């Protein structure tokens, strides 16, 4: 797969902590709205953004799930998670929303190499 014009957005921060997750997803959505192909890689705490049962937070803290569910409408359908990170969080595949691809350890460096445009949040 040639990814030369694809943006990889790496999400490492959880919902309801910093605003990095929200602003990272915003960047992904804007890129897609401009017609760019976008892939998302969730690492560490960022995986929590994919939990099916998450809700809204403290007063004024919007839920993230509606934004995650919106990604598909923007043709962002490559949501990836390293298996190692998932296990380190003591989570399993079925606790995440549908359509998440798990990555073997050796696939993570390869994924980064395939993208010439990377943003980390």
């Amino acid at each position, binding site marked *: 797969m040639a990814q030369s014009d694809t943006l990889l957005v790496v999400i490492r921060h959880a919902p309801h902590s910093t605003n990095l997750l929200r602003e990272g997803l915003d960047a992904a959505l804007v890129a897609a709205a401009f017609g760019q192909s976008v892939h998302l890689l969730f690492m*560490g705490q960022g995986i929590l953004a994919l939990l099916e049962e998450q809700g809204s937070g403290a007063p004024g803290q919007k839920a993230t799930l509606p934004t995650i569910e919106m990604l598909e409408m923007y043709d962002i359908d490559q949501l990836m998670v390293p298996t190692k*990170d998932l296990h380190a969080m003591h989570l399993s595949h079925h606790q995440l929303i549908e359509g998440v691809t798990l990555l073997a350890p050796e696939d993570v460096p390869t994924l980064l*190499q395939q993208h010439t445009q990377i943003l980390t949040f």
Partner: protein
Amino acid sequence: MILHILTKAPYSSVAQQMQQAIGEADAVLLVEEGVTAALSPSWTAWKAYHSRIYILAEDLLARGLNGIAEANELPVIGMDEFVTLTEKYAQTVTWY
């Protein structure tokens, strides 16, 4: 070829995430809090990325760690060589 820039301590979770993402042709630069890795010569990354991991002199000096880095024979580079690394590696990923 990616230059990975680590701004956090060597045993932080982000440092571990970075280590998962480093490819065979990639390099690592330790800056800001990342330079505290000078205090840990047994950190696995020193050996794993030997001859392609660097530590920024300016941030070491600011923290009084340059003597320790020298004593531990760590590969210290200056701002000028930071620029050179970005010339050599077309991509950079910052881990913060």
